[in-house]
């Protein structure tokens, strides 16, 4: 059942992405449905509360890839529940807002689909019970964040921000993966349940492990990049190019908290060590301070929000670093409090942008009169963010200061926290006072020209845009007042030690400091005209990032200079590298004891030597023949010589195919040569034979080196086989009769033992045929007219040859082919042979009658249809057994079938038949395509 929590968002994302959805689901209904779904999930998650309180956690598991330790499992404990409630609860409000935010239906649809996919991934991160599963969802959030930041992909800033965020968080994700894998191996399990159970008995299992430092650093890297910790913080301001609802959801409430989540999650395993405390405290505090300090210098509303988010994330990381769960309570309250007020601010920033056309605070003032509801809302969340009683933000700040006071080096830490909080108060005042309540733009700040030269026509936000923020702001207040009833129970089931949590614990040090923060912040805000003039920090993270990217580009450019665009040079480099590897790998075997003796035991061996020499001689002849046609014929001789070798091996099946294909290949190239433009051929022949001697010498050298390398490899491969045991070949020989029920072992291997291979091979062959077809004549064949051909028959089509072809060649070819199929099991020949024989028959037609006449007369022989039918039979034959609970390709043996005319029908016959049909179709297609006169040539002729 728990799986449904994850499945629902993903399925809904798919549903929204369907092209038909917007047609029957209006935008309003889609919005309300989305809100209802997320609210439903929120309530559903709440129902797990009693179980988690009593049992500690809920688990569900489904074995996914057991070999990789990958289980699809869910682990829902207090921590996961808090985060999942934030995701669904805030998600419900953000999606409600988003329904009214976008201008076009297309944008709405795209955003909703991405949003729900993200929601699913984010829930996956917090709920997954398996380390590797968590990583998959973790990467999912990074990818969807990329898509959402780049939502307005036409803007350069959006593309840049998106790729920057992806590179930083993706790089951190890789570190996280390595860390999680080490952790899983060290802990002996990839399941949270098992890991935590083990840790209960042996608390220092991981922290005393030899890999602890590596695990800790790698996982921290993943968490720090995701949660925008210094010095990786800069991607978050860059991510502000995302639409406001995405910023509110991903970049304040949920995704950036994933880093904090994983640190909290791993606290029992990795926490409570010096390394943990030092790293997290220093990085977190640095981020807390830098973020807050940079925030108040921003002029973009969303920039301020981004930097204060960074600051808060730093505080959360620092709190997680404290020993003995001291900061966990504060961290959890901080997570909830910050998620509520910051997402509201982001949504309101979107409202302001919509209404006024700018987010520049130097341009904004007095919006209170124009949109009072937004102003009230922002006062509410502003008070929460500044930490004013009784909002939840107040509790968050109180607990933060309280934790700082009890931390080691409390003076320094408290000072940083207090100073950063003062900056935060300034930021709140900038966001609320300046934007809504100041009467006019101050003269001291020079009015700067922005992209909006003309004053933007103000239009008031619709109520739909304001409902979400208002609910979230109200939640900040209600959760603060109802702290002990609403928040405390959740934290009680998460923090494994007792604590006190009151809205107002009385006037203590923390409260006094908190009050001082408010006063200091207001004072600093009032004096802003003095420090706003200070210069900006010169070095920005983005600059460093850009520098790195530029260096990568430069290295790439450097590599590019080695590319001169000449294919032959690339070929030489590739081949030379292969040869070097081959020689290096084989040199020791060659020096070993290879049996170099050549035994010549009879005339057969002499014949083999003769054929080997013939093949070499004819291959060389193809080099030396100046004209193409003799060279092609020489190649044919080489093929026949090799076929003869196969025959002597003895390998009758292969020899048969080789003879036939060789014939076909020779016909093919002869026709092709005829088809090629004569001038082009003449030109290239002249060019070739006038090539510089140096080039030829170089090529000879390369060819010799490669020939030598391959030769040495072949010799060492053949000559070092020891006692020549052949378990595979032997197995085939012994089992062919019983398993395949045929006599011909080669046929059995092709059509039975390795049938899947063969199935793929006939597909490849068909694809090659279709490739030839698309390359040469897709257009002209589509315009094929079945009318009577006008052109005259070729000269070769004398009455006698016509008679022979029509009466003898094709019918007999098909008959012989059929015989090959039927007797494939016991005699030489198989489906391939049959296909090639049939193909030869068709080819003769084309040669004698020419293209047009053959097309007209052989209409029943439709090559594409043959290929389709052949492949269809092959697939049905392969898949049918699955219906009867038998393995792929495992048809019943037909040995019970009566033996008519020595047919010996076997299980492979149907497959052989489909091979025949497919190969016949493919060859006919190739031949038809090649013989067909091309339209362009006719035009140029």
């Amino acid at each position, binding site marked *: 059942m728990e799986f449904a929590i994850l499945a629902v968002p993903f399925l809904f994302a798919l549903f929204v992405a369907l092209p038909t959805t917007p047609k029957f689901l209006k935008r309003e209904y889609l919005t309300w449905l989305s809100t209802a779904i997320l609210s439903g999930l929120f309530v559903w998650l709440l129902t797990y509360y009693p179980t988690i309180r009593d049992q500690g956690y809920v688990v569900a598991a489904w074995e996914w890839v057991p070999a990789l330790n990958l289980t699809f499992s869910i682990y829902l404990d207090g921590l996961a529940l808090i985060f999942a409630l934030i995701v669904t609860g805030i998600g419900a409000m953000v999606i409600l807002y988003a329904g009214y935010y976008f201008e076009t239906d297309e944008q709405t649809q795209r955003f909703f689909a991405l949003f729900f996919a993200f929601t699913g991934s984010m829930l996956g991160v917090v709920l997954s019970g398996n380390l590797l599963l968590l990583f998959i969802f973790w990467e999912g959030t990074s990818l969807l964040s990329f898509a959402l930041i780049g939502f307005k992909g036409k803007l350069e800033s959006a593309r840049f921000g998106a790729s920057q965020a992806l590179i930083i968080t993706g790089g951190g994700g890789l570190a996280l993966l390595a860390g999680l894998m080490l952790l899983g191996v060290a802990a002996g399990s990839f399941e949270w349940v098992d890991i935590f159970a083990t840790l209960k008995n042996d608390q220092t299992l991981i922290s005393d492990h030899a890999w602890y430092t590596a695990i800790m650093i790698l996982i921290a890297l993943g968490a720090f990049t995701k949660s925008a910790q210094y010095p990786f913080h800069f991607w978050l301001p860059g991510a502000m190019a995302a639409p406001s609802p995405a910023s509110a959801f991903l970049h304040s409430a949920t995704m950036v908290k994933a880093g904090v989540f994983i640190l909290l999650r791993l606290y029992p395993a990795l926490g409570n060590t010096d390394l943990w405390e030092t790293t997290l405290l220093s990085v977190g505090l640095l981020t807390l301070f830098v973020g807050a300090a940079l925030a108040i210098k921003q002029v973009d509303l969303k920039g301020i929000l981004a930097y204060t988010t960074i600051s808060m994330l730093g505080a959360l990381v620092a709190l997680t670093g404290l020993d003995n769960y001291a900061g966990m309570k504060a961290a959890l309250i901080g997570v909830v409090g910050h998620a509520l007020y910051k997402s509201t601010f982001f949504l309101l920033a979107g409202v302001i942008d919509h209404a006024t056309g700018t987010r520049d605070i130097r341009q904004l003032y007095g919006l209170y009169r124009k949109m009072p509801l937004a102003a009230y809302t922002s006062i509410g969340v502003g008070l929460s963010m500044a930490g004013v009683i009784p909002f939840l933000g107040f509790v968050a700040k109180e607990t933060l200061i309280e934790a700082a006071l009890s931390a080691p080096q409390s003076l320094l830490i408290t000072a940083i926290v207090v100073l950063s909080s003062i900056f935060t108060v300034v930021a709140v005042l900038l966001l609320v006072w300046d934007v809504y309540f100041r009467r006019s733009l101050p003269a001291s700040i020079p009015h700067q020209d922005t992209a909006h030269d003309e004053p933007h026509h103000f239009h008031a936000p619709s109520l739909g845009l304001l409902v979400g923020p208002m609910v979230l702001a109200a939640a900040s207040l209600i959760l603060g007042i109802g702290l002990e009833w609403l928040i405390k129970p959740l934290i009680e089931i998460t923090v494994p030690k007792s604590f006190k949590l009151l809205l107002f614990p009385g006037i203590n040090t923390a409260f006094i400091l908190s009050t001082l923060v408010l006063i200091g912040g207001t004072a600093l805000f009032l004096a802003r005209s003095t420090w706003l003039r200070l210069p900006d920090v010169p070095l920005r993270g983005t600059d460093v990032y850009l520098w790195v990217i530029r260096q990568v580009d430069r290295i790439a450019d450097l590599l590019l200079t080695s590319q001169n665009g000449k294919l032959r040079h690339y070929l030489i480099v590739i081949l030379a590298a292969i040869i070097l590897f081959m020689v290096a790998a084989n040199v020791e075997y060659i020096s070993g004891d290879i049996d170099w003796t050549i035994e010549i035991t009879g005339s057969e061996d002499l014949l083999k030597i003769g054929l080997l020499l013939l093949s070499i001689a004819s*291959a060389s002849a193809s080099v030396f023949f100046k004209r193409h046609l003799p060279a092609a014929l020489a190649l044919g001789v080489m093929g026949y010589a090799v076929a003869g070798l196969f025959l002597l091996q003895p390998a009758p099946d292969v020899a048969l195919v080789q003879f036939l294909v060789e014939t076909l290949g020779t016909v093919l190239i002869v026709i092709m040569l005829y088809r090629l433009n004569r001038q082009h051929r003449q030109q290239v022949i002249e060019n070739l034979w006038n090539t510089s001697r140096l080039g030829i010498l170089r090529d000879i050298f390369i060819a010799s080196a*490669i020939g030598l390398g391959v030769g040495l490899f072949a010799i060492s491969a053949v000559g070092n086989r020891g006692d*020549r045991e052949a378990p595979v070949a032997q197995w085939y020989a012994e089992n062919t009769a019983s398993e395949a029920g045929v006599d011909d072992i080669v046929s059995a291997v*092709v059509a039975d033992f390795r049938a899947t291979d063969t199935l793929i091979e006939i597909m490849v062959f068909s694809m090659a045929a279709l490739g030839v077809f698309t390359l040469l004549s897709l257009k002209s064949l589509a315009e094929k007219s079945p009318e009577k051909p006008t052109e005259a028959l070729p000269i070769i089509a004398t009455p006698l040859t016509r008679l022979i072809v029509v009466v003898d060649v094709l019918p007999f070819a098909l008959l012989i082919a059929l015989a090959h199929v039927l007797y494939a099991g016991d005699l030489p020949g198989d489906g391939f042979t049959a296909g090639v024989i049939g193909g030869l028959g068709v080819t003769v037609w084309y040669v004698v009658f020419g293209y047009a006449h053959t097309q007209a007369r052989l209409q029943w022989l439709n090559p594409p249809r043959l290929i389709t039918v052949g492949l269809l039979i092959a697939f049905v034959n392969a898949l049918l057994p699955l219906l009867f609970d038998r393995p792929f390709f495992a048809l019943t043996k037909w040995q019970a079938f009566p033996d008519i005319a020595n047919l010996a029908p076997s299980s492979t016959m149907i497959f052989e038949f489909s091979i025949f049909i497919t190969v016949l179709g493919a060859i006919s297609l190739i031949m038809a395509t090649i013989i067909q006169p091309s339209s362009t040539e006719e035009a140029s002729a």
Partner: protein
Amino acid sequence: MTILFAMTTGILFGIGVFQLLRRDLVKSAMGFYILFTAVNLFFFAAGVFDGERPAYVSETDRGQISDPLVQALVLTAIVISFGTYAVLLALLNVSSQRFKSIDLDEINQLQK
């Protein structure tokens, strides 16, 4: 005997590569064809049995049969190499039609 097959493989491979490096695309395609043949020959050389009889179950009593595994591999490889050859020649044709040349160096010049 298999050593001779292996040596021939090397020699044919050398010739094939030399053909492949020609600027004449027809000769390049022929080079491919020689490489296909060389590789098939190598498979045969790599067969484990130096057989006297063809690879049939009924022949196993009458002497050593030739290695059926390499035969099955080569059998399909022959047909596939024909298909590849056909595609290469078709590409050649396209090059002739589109670039008005089948000289690799001239086509390279065209790009600049």
